[in-house]
């Protein structure tokens, strides 16, 4: 152990880094909890199973094999490199050097795997960069993926390369130092051993390089950690709770609004006892909640959790029949709007202004409303987008982290219909047909059996 000023410095940096991160996470949590309450308890084993398969196991990624393999490299690399981060933390705090090397052969395996994965990560990141910026993959375009979201996606790729370069600098310099001293460095270094030739041969320079690599790696990781809450890359954390709390019922099953159930029951049966409305803790009546959702706080907290888990990959939009045929609807945009809006309304708690892709895209095709009075519905999401949805569930099926854009769409449709009576006219005609004739078309109920007319003639005669 060589306890020094470096260790104290490291302690301060680490505390600041994790402290800032915890502060940001608390704000995000508060933002999510502005959503309506929804009981998601129970079914623990089923939920854990799902989390294991979809979040850890990347099950839904494998519908598209190229990005799945590239993503898997970065993902596994990220997990394995965390072992190295643990070692760096220990070394940084206690002035040890390669504290985990007592693991012997296992340590060699870990470090060796790490190096190979690190090299593969650089290759994967290059491929990702190509697909996103040159390769013309359709789902990486679209109005909601301009400006910050585009930059965000690239920033993370650059940061990953920087982190890997720092790692290799540290290892290669350390290796060469040991070689010069004729000592054995514990671990296996399949990649760094190829790089030692590129490094200077002076001990002083190598010592500096090793420290620079070490500090760059750990400070880089702490910066990355604090960048996450502002970025779509928050999904590397949020995907887990999001998948855990995903819906377990059939995708076709929409929620039944309870308050309406009480009303309808009371209408049909005058003796029905409507449960007393919920009260505030002080006993006063709570403000009535609107039907459906006009703004983010009318959505369920799970919908807001969705918004913080979105990777902006566009798999949802790329399978959306409305979007495919040129309509304004993009399920990805609905999810991104939700996150932007919750941070606008409840103060962006984050370091960067997240997600924003520019007002011109956000308000495409409609008048921009007053910034003070606008809401998620109309301020961000237009009725035209909502009415284009066929409720086909393709977006839900496609999302690799089990986000459900359809649920938010239906909640906003409910607000349009039940609170504003703002359905397209032809739908209002359909509603009144159901009310008057018991069918969405203008046919008389007495004609309901006509299909059988000529069918049983022979038998009945």
């Amino acid at each position, binding site marked *: 152990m060589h306890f020094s000023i470096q260790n104290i410095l490291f302690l301060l940096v680490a505390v600041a880094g994790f402290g800032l991160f915890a502060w940001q996470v608390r704000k995000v949590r508060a933002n999510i909890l502005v959503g309506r309450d929804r009981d998601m308890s129970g079914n623990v084993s089923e939920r854990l199973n799902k989390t294991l398969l979809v979040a850890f196991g990347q099950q839904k990624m494998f519908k598209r094999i190229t990005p799945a393999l590239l993503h898997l490299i970065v993902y596994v690399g990220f997990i394995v490199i965390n072992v190295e981060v643990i070692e760096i933390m220990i070394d940084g705090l206690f002035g040890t050097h390669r504290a985990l090397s007592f693991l012997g052969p296992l340590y060699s395996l870990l470090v060796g795997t790490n190096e190979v994965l690190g090299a593969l990560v650089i290759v994967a990141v290059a491929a990702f960069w190509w697909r996103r910026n040159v390769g013309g993959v359709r789902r990486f375009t679209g109005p909601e993926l301009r400006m910050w979201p585009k930059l965000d996606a690239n920033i993370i790729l650059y940061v990953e390369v920087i982190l890997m370069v720092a790692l290799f600098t540290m290892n290669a310099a350390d290796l060469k130092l040991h070689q010069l001293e004729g000592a054995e460095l514990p671990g296996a270094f399949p990649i760094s051993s190829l790089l030692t030739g590129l490094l200077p041969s002076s001990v002083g320079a190598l010592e500096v390089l090793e420290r620079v690599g070490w500090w760059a790696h750990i400070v880089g990781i702490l910066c990355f950690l604090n960048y996450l809450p502002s970025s779509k890359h928050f999904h590397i954390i949020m995907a887990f709770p999001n998948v855990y709390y995903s819906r377990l019922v059939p995708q076709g099953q929409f929620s039944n609004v309870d308050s309406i159930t009480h009303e309808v029951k009371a209408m049909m049966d005058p003796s029905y006892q409507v449960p007393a409305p919920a009260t505030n803790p002080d006993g006063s009546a709570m403000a009535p909640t609107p039907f459906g959702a006009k703004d983010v706080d009318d959505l369920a907290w799970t919908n807001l959790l969705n918004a913080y888990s979105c990777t902006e990959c566009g798999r949802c939009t790329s399978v959306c029949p409305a979007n495919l045929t040129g309509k304004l609807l993009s399920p990805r945009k609905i999810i991104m709007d939700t996150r932007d809006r919750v941070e606008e309304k409840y103060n962006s708690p984050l370091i960067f202004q997240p997600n924003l892709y520019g007002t011109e895209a956000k308000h495409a095709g409609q008048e921009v409303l007053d910034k003070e009075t606008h809401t998620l519905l109309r301020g961000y999401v237009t009725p035209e987008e909502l009415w*284009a949805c066929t409720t086909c569930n393709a977006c839900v099926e496609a999302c690799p982290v089990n986000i459900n854009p359809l649920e938010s769409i239906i909640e906003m449709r409910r607000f349009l*219909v039940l609170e504003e009576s703002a359905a397209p006219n032809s739908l209002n005609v359909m*509603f009144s047909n159901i009310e008057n004739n018991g069918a969405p078309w203008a046919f008389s109920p007495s004609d309901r059996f006509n299909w059988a007319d000529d069918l049983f003639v022979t038998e009945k005669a």
Partner: protein
Amino acid sequence: MANLAAAGEEPEILFWVGCAGAFDDRYKRVTRAFVQILEHVGVKYAVLGMEETCTGDPAKRAGNEFLFQMQAMQNITTFEGYGIKKIVTACPHCFNTIKNEYPALGGNYEVIHHSTFLQQLINEGRVGVSGGGEFKGQRITFHDSCYLGRANNIYEAPRDVLAALDADLVEMKRSKANGLCCGAGGAQMWKEPEPGKKDINVERTEEALAALDGNAAALANLNGVESGNAGATPAPRNGQQRSIIAVSCPFCMTMMSDGVKNKERENSVQVFDLAELIATAEGLNA
């Protein structure tokens, strides 16, 4: 149903006809075909006739939760009045709503879509299909309806039914969980589409025609299909032979038929419901 109840009899199943099955001229033929199958196999069934009323699905998808629940409660009351336990329907929207959304409102039934029901009849040997009859060797592609497939995970039953026809089945590029909507769900059936480049049913029909024609170039040109995960490309055929798009939903029927007309292929391509195919193969012509 009222007649049966009056006679003190209980049906094995309630056949829920649905609004499209009762009023849509094209889908009435499907209703008839299905009833003929029921008669043929001697299942004791009943229909509600004039006591049936919309399940409320289009109202619910359009956001009119109030109207939906009014319809649902009314239907549940009717079901309870007759002690209904088992419901079969040819409409995936009715199926989904009664199966998944009625229980929370107090209506619990065993609900079966007719594709599953037909599959059971075939498996039990109650419908023989005699080697496919006139469909033997014809090229058929199945269009998954969203409310059967993704909404309720029923992908194999309709394919099993078609397999019994001994036809030349081809898959579209987007099928099963990746299937493309016909464009009518979510109450789109009752309104004009929002402005865009194309109507959804046209896109889907193009895909179906490409699969039926074995046209690889047309397949490659489809919007937004990212990876080549389709089955083996069928051998090309000259667009003159008769091919079939099989559906199992009244809305898909309308949308795909309109799409075929839009592409001016109604002479060579026909749209049929599973029940029609089975009834015809059994020689029960409606």
